């Protein structure tokens, strides 16, 4: 079985099959680039992911392994709608996979899925974050996302007044 070494930003190496790694658009490109530039066809590719730490990379690879037999989603599928992919692709395993994660981990996972071009994972994680936004007050959203208001002057009040034009009955 052809293998590839994927190394996280903090130096952890993960040895995975190339078949599995190629489920990620980014890793697929890297492997193909390595193959073209390498004289030795048997050489094992080594890919450094400088933006993803070990824990997150491990989760991505874990998700890929679980979904290794799923059809690969085209990068632009439903991009205008944005709905559908997550609902269609989310299994009980996905729900169990995401359930124990705090929002910080999920946000890191989104960044990683985006960087590694894993559309299915990106969809379900984005959907999860969206569900944490819907129905919440502004303060609750700020707390959940560890954000603070950085509006200057009366901009926040002005924005609130603008919103009233659309939601006031």
């Amino acid at each position: 079985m052809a293998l590839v070494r994927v190394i996280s930003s903090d130096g952890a190496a993960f040895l995975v099959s190339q078949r599995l790694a190629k489920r990620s658009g980014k890793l697929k490109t890297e492997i193909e680039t390595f193959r073209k530039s390498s004289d030795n066809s048997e050489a094992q590719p080594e890919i450094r992911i400088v933006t993803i730490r070990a824990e997150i990379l491990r989760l991505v690879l874990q998700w890929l392994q679980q979904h290794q037999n799923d059809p690969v989603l085209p990068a632009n599928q439903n991009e205008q709608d944005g709905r559908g992919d997550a609902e269609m692709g989310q299994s009980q395993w996905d729900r169990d996979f995401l359930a124990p994660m705090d929002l910080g981990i999920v946000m890191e996972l989104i960044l990683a899925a985006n960087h590694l071009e894993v559309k299915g994972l990106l969809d379900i994680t984005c959907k999860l974050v969206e569900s944490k936004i819907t129905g919440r007050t502004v303060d609750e959203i700020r707390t959940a996302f560890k954000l603070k208001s950085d509006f200057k002057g009366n901009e926040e009040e002005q924005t609130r007044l603008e919103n009233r034009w659309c939601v006031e009955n």
Partner: protein
Amino acid sequence: MDKQDRNKFTNWMRRLRNIFSKSKKPQHILPSILPSSESELSELRISSYSQETIFPPELMEAILDKLHYVEDLPTLLRCRLVCSHWKQVVEKKLETEYLFRWTNLNQDEDHSLSIFQETRISTCFYSVIPETVYSGLTHIWLPPAIAANPKGNPFPNKSAAVIGFENCHSGTHSDRACPNLEHRIESKAPYEEVVKLFQNYGKYLTTLVLHDLIIFQDNFCLVLASTESLKALTLSWVKVSYSKEEAKINVPKCLTHLHILSSHDNTETFYKWLMTAVSPQIVNLKIQGRAPFYGKVTLEQEIFKKLKCLHVYSPMEWDLAEMLRKVESPPALQHVTAVWGWISNDYWTVEDVIKFIAKFCTSLVSLKIHVKLCDLITPFENCGKIFPNVKFVAMVIANPEYRAGWDEVSIRESILPWFPKVESVIIVNGFNVSGVGFIQCPLCNRYEQ
């Protein structure tokens, strides 16, 4: 702790150090990507995400894209209040979503559906400020508190629809329609409020729908002059009234960003002004019913220098068909829709359409046409042109019985000689969206009936 346990613990700690050490290379390779136990994984879950983490706007957009811009508008508006970054992301999303109503050229089934809808209906339905203006200019309802003391930009979604008289729907929508209603509009104070809103905040708009309106020239110019950021404009059954019959509109030199124009049944003088003012910059033009081509404004490349997309719906005017027949050098159009509804159209035949598109056969990428498959063959043979870059063809049929006999072979035989690179053929059965069914050609391996 016995020796075996101590060794196990030491090994585990070494592994952890390797994982979290930035300076030190790992001493060994993890044999598997999976954790040896769930408890080990849980211990590793120490979130490093914080508000200092730079979260790319495109990912914030990906998250907010899961929210629907109409159904979840209250949530999106709340997100505007979270922080300045989120505000920017939401505003960009809303602008993109509303503009997409005009620029939808995607070729999958859902999007093709909306292409065949009358744009007038879709744009008005989805455009906002319904609570303030929807009920019409004669009886505009503004929330009393805001009407008394309006504050802030009323167009946070950068989109507005001003929709007028319901009773104009049954009129002829011409200069002759509702002749005595102009004064009623002008005499109503709320109308002035709307004009004032546009004067103060029209600069925030990127999309605007004016529908079913009779409006005096001066006020019309005030409204348009304030919309300096406008990118897409739908004008539907708009009548501009003048103090004198042949008076000219003072063209506001402001619509420099406008490149999408959707036009339905407006008055002649208005068209003369509009097309003269904006035709050189229009990229996407949709026409329905009355044609906006009068006098010297024809669909020649020297007039519509940037036009790429032309959608003609129900061209019921002889002048339009005649103009299209006479065009010598049209722009290099890439997307053409030629659809007429259930009304039998003797002005513009399939042959006319084929002759017209043959004038820019090399630039054409997608074609949507209201035609029976069997009626295509003779016009194509007569025109003798091949369309080498067409990748998408859609055909609309008004009567389900025309579907009989359409199969993979007949579609392939009819289409491929003229469109050698076609990738997808969609056949839309019926003109009403509710009655649409698809047969997708197996050229893209998705044949359904």
